[in-house]
């Protein structure tokens, strides 16, 4: 059953990314272009998402277990370490270069655009290399 809920959550997530305009790299870059011509829309995407997810997740977190899975799996790390900051700096730079972050990049695969495929292939190569480097640190 977790398979069904994964697919449905993914579809709704993908429709949300599309309606919000986040599948348009030009719009994302417009948000990052604060000092010139600024498009604040992305801020409203985050506010909308947080206003829904935050309260609902706090209410349901008190349940002993999720509906289909055995238990809740949430990140437990608390410390602000080098990996977090360096990773966020690198991600921000890549985001600013192409205007794509992982969600919209995957959703954009539906547009059958070769440039998106190229970006996604290198994104997965980045995941692979990042995992390798992080393992090296542990």
């Amino acid at each position, binding site marked *: 059953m977790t398979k069904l809920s994964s697919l449905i959550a993914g579809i709704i997530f993908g429709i949300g990314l599309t309606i919000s305009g986040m599948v348009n790299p030009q719009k994302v870059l417009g948000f990052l*272009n604060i000092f010139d011509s600024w498009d604040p829309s992305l801020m409203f995407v985050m506010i909308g998402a947080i206003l829904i997810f935050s309260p609902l997740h706090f209410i349901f977190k008190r349940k002993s277990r999720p509906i289909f899975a055995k238990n*809740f799996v949430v990140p437990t790390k608390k410390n602000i370490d080098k990996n977090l900051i360096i990773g966020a700096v690198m*991600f921000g730079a890549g985001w600013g270069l192409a205007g794509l972050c992982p969600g919209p990049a995957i959703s954009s695969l539906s547009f059958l655009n070769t440039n998106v495929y190229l970006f996604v292939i290198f994104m997965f190569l980045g995941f692979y290399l990042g995992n390798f480097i992080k393992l090296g640190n542990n």
Partner: protein
Amino acid sequence: MNIINFTPISAFVGGSLIGFAAFLFFVFNGRIAGVSSIASNTIIKNENRLDNILFLSGLIIGPIIYSLSGNEIESVLTNSLPLLISGGLLVGFGTKIGNGCTSGHGVCGISRFSLRSIIATITFIITGVITVLIFGI
């Protein structure tokens, strides 16, 4: 600074759907809908692999359903190979090292009041702004 192309209503509605999808994934699967983790785990971990692939398939199906219902989708991506390659590598590598992206840190993490996510989100937005300032749109 002047404000252009601002679409607060569609942004808010789309954002709410993203939040609702993250809520479904949390309540049914008990997991955080961070796309970089879900995507990277498909090639790194055996655990929940099919769930992860189905979630990603959903992300691809979403825009198709939206356009089949008669809506236009606007999307303009650079043609520059160096930008696409370096952008893809940095996004993949950075989100793996930093444990999250716009969805995992920016939406879910901030919603959970995680200090790590708040700091990561501020950091990647500032770096993104500086990158656009240097390289332009």
